[in-house]
């Protein structure tokens, strides 16, 4: 049986030729992402800003009556709700600030949840209240801080590990790719205004892990080739390494995308944002391991000497003797 080959055998794409334009585009995308995050802001869920979120599914309708809901809930006097569909068109999350004084009297938040749920049920026969989340301001601040810590520490710890296993240039390259991936994911959330909650932090950590996985595979091959082809110019050597690992990159990314698209299409709607984030992350992560982490090695001047042990005095003598013997 003839086996399927996703990448032809003698593929030789000159990836590194375009490193500068791609690098500039990536840089611009990163800047644009952060600019969007700061101007548009992220649509923070109750996990990070506190408040109450009520999830409702309209079991008999194809689409949720969002505008109507907004009006009905605003009438209750708890302020303007944020209403968004998530995953499916007929499922919404309704977010409200916790009522004044609810940090002292927990009953107030409870009463609000009851009143809002009752109002929705009264107006819509098919409304099914799927869940209520209430997070106080204090806890949400802590959740935000610990999430930030987890992200920061994970990035640093991983970079240190790569530095230890490879060389400092590789550590910086990996860190750079990682910042790139996280930035673009944040950009996605700023553009789409999908809800940014705790699970998205888990998604970003996954992207970091995956993107590094990719980077490491390429780096591992670069390290191997650096030892093998001592005289080859670096851009050429990087191209060779990327091309040699290309079929693996395509295959693995493809497999990941298959499982993720299955999750997006058939999976639970509650984790739609989570899956969407990782799906983007796979693209960005694959791209960044080719166009971010590899070219940086050129600019940081990695040499084959980085992986060859320093000569001992005896070896030096022997080498000189050998070279002297040559014409």
């Amino acid at each position, binding site marked *: *049986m003839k*086996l*399927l080959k996703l990448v032809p055998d003698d593929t030789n794409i000159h990836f590194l030729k375009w490193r500068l334009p791609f690098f500039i585009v990536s840089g611009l995308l990163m800047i644009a992402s952060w600019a969007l995050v700061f101007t548009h802001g992220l649509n923070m869920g109750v996990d990070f800003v506190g408040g109450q979120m009520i999830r409702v599914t309209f079991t008999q309708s194809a689409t949720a009556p969002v505008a109507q809901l907004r009006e009905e809930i605003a009438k209750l006097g708890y302020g303007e709700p944020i209403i968004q569909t998530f995953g499916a068109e007929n499922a919404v999350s309704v977010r409200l600030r916790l009522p004044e004084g609810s940090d002292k009297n927990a*009953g107030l*938040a409870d009463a609000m949840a009851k009143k809002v749920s009752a109002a929705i049920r009264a107006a819509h026969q098919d409304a*099914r*209240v*799927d*869940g*209520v*989340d*209430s*997070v*106080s301001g204090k*806890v949400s601040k802590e*959740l935000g801080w610990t*999430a930030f*810590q*987890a992200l920061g*520490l*994970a990035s640093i*710890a*991983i970079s240190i*590990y*790569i530095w230890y*296993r490879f060389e400092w240039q590789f550590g910086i390259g990996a860190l750079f790719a990682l910042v790139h991936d996280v930035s673009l994911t944040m950009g996605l959330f700023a553009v789409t205004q999908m809800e940014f909650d*705790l*699970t998205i*932090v*888990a998604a970003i*950590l*996954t992207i970091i*892990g995956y993107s*590094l*996985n990719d980077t*490491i*595979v390429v780096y*591992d*091959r670069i390290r191997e080739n650096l030892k093998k082809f001592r005289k080859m110019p670096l851009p050429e050597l990087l191209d060779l390494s990327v091309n040699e*690992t290309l*079929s*693996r990159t395509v*295959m*693995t990314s493809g*497999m*990941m995308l*298959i*499982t*993720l698209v*299955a*999750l997006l*299409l*058939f*999976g*639970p*709607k*509650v*984790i739609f944002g*989570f*899956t969407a984030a990782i799906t983007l992350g796979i693209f960005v992560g694959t791209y960044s391991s080719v166009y971010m982490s590899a070219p940086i090695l050129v600019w940081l001047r990695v040499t084959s000497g980085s992986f060859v042990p320093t000569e001992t005095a005896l070896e030096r003598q022997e080498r000189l003797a050998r070279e002297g013997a040559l014409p």
Partner: protein
Amino acid sequence: MLDFPRWKQVFYWLITALICCAALPSLVSVAGYNWPASLPNPKINLGLDLAGGSHLLLEASADQVVAQRLEAKEEELRNAFKKAGNVQFGDISNRGGVISFIVGNTAQVDAVRDIVDKQETGSQRNWTFAVQDTTRIVLTPTKESANEAVSRAMETAIEVVRKRIDALGTREPTIIRQGADRIVVQVPGLKDPSSLKALLGQTAKLEFKLVDELASATDIAQGIAPPGDEIVPYAEAGMPPIAVKRLGGIKGDRLTDAKQGYNQNNIPVVNISFDTQGGEQFARLTTENTGKRFAIILDGKVLSAPTINTPIIGGSAEISGSFTVESANQLAISLRSGALPVDLKVVEERTVGPDLGADSINKGMIAMGVGTGLVVLFMALVYGRFGLYANAALVINVLMILGVMSVMSTTLTLPGIAGFVLTIGAAVDANVLINERIREERKRGRRVFQSVELGYKEASRAIFDANITNVIAAALMFAFGSGPIKGFAVVLVIGIVTSVFTAVTMTRMWVAGWLRRTRPNDINI
């Protein structure tokens, strides 16, 4: 690399079989059958987001514990000074986190020091003793003792919370302490947590205190308490506060039972019974004060202030207030389970309806089925026989993840399912790396055995590094993350370990066995 002695093969298969067996009970119950009760039953717990239920995060006020401790110490000192008889003290206060008072002269400072030292019974000091301006004594609680007091209060609080939730009759609640001053309560299957919250929000500190009938109503209205009195508001709205005697009352911690009942007018009340000592105290109070009124105070609010018509000596009494059957029942539960040593406040609450959870499980399963099916198909198409080995490893990997989760009785949450699906995608990466490498080595003209050997050897380095970085990320998620992040990290770590075992070790064993049996000159990869 390709050498597998018999004992090693047996050992690997044994481990695999054992761990996969542990997944059986979970699989059987998902398929809708009952697992025989006589067999061991390790099972994966479903998180609240899948099973439906309520999650509450309660926070205790540490300041309150400190304040209570200062009050108790002041009381202890007052009694000790009275007993010693040789100390005149004044201007005593317990504000600002310290107890501060003035004694008559410097000689008394030493007497006080002796008394304080005698009260220190533990191995480490609870209070530091300082003298200011020769006659002012300041007692400051040491940090260790303060922490210990909070810790003790939390332990008691957890016990009380457990008793109260058990009284509600809900099944399998999880009650764990989090950090210094928080308690996580998770009750699966609970749809409406409001009655639970009402129950936990009640400190249930019950007191009986005599009403000061001589206090003037205008003073009370202005909030001026006559000496020796305190002003207590009514629980019921619209009732004016009353003044009660600060000392000489009875605390409600001497109860043996509390039940909801009805009085002669068929109005809900709570019937309480005291233990022997409490019964005697109550009998004395009611005998000495017949004809007067005493206030029943719950958590600093007056429930009712009935007149003592006849001495109550039977050791049981009836608490009236404006109760409904439900609120009387709640109070009875709270009193039975004892008072909380400290107020608890709900700072985070998550409730998931059962429909959403069931929906999530179904959809998660479908996604997993579709994803796995497609991956398996692709692997077979691209790598042939080597793809089939990878697929077998994948199936075993899934079973092993379930098995390890069952044995560790991990909780599977929704992000956990996502982690599961993702692990499947990532697990094949190891095989992709290996198989691609074998292809490459074959292309370079190496012989079959050597190519396979090199494929495993060269790919292992990258597989190792990549998985270590993922473990680092997952470990930090677990350490710092909360709720959903933790659930995800657990599955990820388990998946990384099992996938390296199945995708690298097991497939190598199978490939080696096949190569040795058939000794092919060429392989289709």
